[in-house]
């Protein structure tokens, strides 16, 4: 009993730390990738007690300290309770969604088989959708409670955008669920362990390429960053829904954006790119397509799987940051047209075609 509770707690802490580490790396990429894309050296001017030797690392340490020590200015006319709640409501659901994302297969320690997933939920993918749909409250409440025209406009834009793209996102997921015939994320990843034609890892993207494009686009839109940053668009709305926030609350809003970026990366990895699967690695070791076999102990397999998952997530986080620094912002009508007239019909067609194939041919 005590050991079970300890294992569950350790898994939860590990999942959340894994997510937060990638968030930290995301901030690193944000500074460095933007510098490279804009052809400049990058943030390397922060000195801690006169020591600037670590360049960008110094900045990454100094940034959060600066935010946490800043004065928290709350305007007089805000709705105090909701103004305080909004940043929390924005970041907590996004972090909770990591609970159902598996980061490894089964770790065998003695008699005990530990499923490397913080919460085993048979409706895992729906839980992620539920948490993603709660994130919109942070935007709406921040926009409304601030009692500021810019904030309100940002909040309205944010809620309309997030609801619109959630629909395309959900429909893209239906195609995936039809293919794998389960809602459990761990089961989905296990099904991606096979090989096509004896050499190609059978990852979800091969079965559902259209769903991948729709889901990834909608996911980038959900994180409210350029090119979908209309809720904050600093050239029109100052900072949109978090104009009236400063200090640690402002940091929480910025962090929730990055947590959502990492969440989208983790979901894309899990659903379309084999999650923790390492090509040709089974529970007892590598089985190469040529027929060779290398035995790997259980703990080694677990480490390889967790590393594989982390590398894929980091790759998709990096990809989103490159997109953010490459594309200009959409106009509002373009945003709505892409969501309702572009992604939605494509996702519906994908559901139709997938259902037909599943009925006529069967699941892979």
């Amino acid at each position, binding site marked *: 009993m005590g050991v079970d509770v300890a294992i569950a707690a350790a898994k939860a802490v590990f999942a959340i730390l894994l997510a937060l580490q990638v968030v930290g790396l995301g901030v690193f990429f944000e500074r460095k990738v933007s510098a490279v894309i804009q052809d400049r050296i990058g943030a390397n001017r922060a000195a801690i007690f006169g020591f600037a030797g670590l360049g960008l690392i110094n900045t990454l340490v100094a940034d959060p300290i600066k935010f946490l020590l800043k004065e928290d200015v709350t305007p007089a006319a805000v*709705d105090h309770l909701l103004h305080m709640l909004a940043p929390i409501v924005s970041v907590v659901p996004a972090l909770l969604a990591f609970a159902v994302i598996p980061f490894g297969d089964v770790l065998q320690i003695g008699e005990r088989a530990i499923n490397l997933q913080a919460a085993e939920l048979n409706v895992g993918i729906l839980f992620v*959708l539920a948490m993603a*749909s*709660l994130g*919109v409250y942070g935007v709406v409440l921040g*926009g*409304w409670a601030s009692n500021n025209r810019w904030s309100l406009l940002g909040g*309205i834009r944010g809620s309309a955008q997030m*609801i619109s793209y*959630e629909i395309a996102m959900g429909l893209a997921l239906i195609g995936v669920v039809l293919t794998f015939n389960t809602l459990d994320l761990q089961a989905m990843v296990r099904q991606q362990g096979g090989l096509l034609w004896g050499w190609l890892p059978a990852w979800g993207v091969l079965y559902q390429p259209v769903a991948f494009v729709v889901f990834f686009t909608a996911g980038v839109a959900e994180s409210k960053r350029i090119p979908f940053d209309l809720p904050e668009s600093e050239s029109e709305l100052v900072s949109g829904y978090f104009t009236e926030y400063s200090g640690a609350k402002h940091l929480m809003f910025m962090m929730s954006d990055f947590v959502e970026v990492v969440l989208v990366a983790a979901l894309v990895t899990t659903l379309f790119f084999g999650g923790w699967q390492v090509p040709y690695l089974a529970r007892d070791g590598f089985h190469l397509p040529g027929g060779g076999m290398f035995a790997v102990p259980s703990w080694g397999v677990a480490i390889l799987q967790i590393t594989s998952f982390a590398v894929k997530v980091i790759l998709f986080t990096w990809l989103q940051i490159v997109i953010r620094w490459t594309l200009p912002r959409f106009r509002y009508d373009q945003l709505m047209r892409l969501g309702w007239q572009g992604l939605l019909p494509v996702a519906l067609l994908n559901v139709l075609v997938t259902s037909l194939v599943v009925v006529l041919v069967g699941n892979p």
Partner: protein
Amino acid sequence: MNPLVFLLLAVLTVAAAISVVVTANPVHSALGLVVTLFLLSVFFVALDAQLVAVLQVIVYAGAIVVLFLFVVMLLNLQGERRLTGGMGLLVAAIAGALAFTALLVTLLGRSAPAPSTTVPAGFGETQALAQRLFTSHLLAFELTSVLLLVAVVGAVALSRR
């Protein structure tokens, strides 16, 4: 369900539901509704109905109340006008009281089903629920979808006015 957990949840849920009616600010009311719906989904989790719990959050807390808030924000209401007195209010109060009494009498008249300690295998899971929905409740299910379609057509027709 643990009686203590049930009691705690019940008190919180009823308090949240009361706050929906009592608060003067429509945004606070809507948020009270979100909290109520969220607590109801906790009930479903405690009753082994994970799918219903998650759907409750996605559909009600995640979509419908967000739309409420969206409309409230567009109208930019500062506070509600309080109706005092008037025939309409009296009639509504009497009708509400009668409906509540009828509900209470019906519920108290029924004998409670014998509590079972074991949950059948697969209870509350997606497959069991879908099986029921698409066999014994198929007609109601399809009629609901027609109803929703009518609502969508109606909304489009109204917006074209």
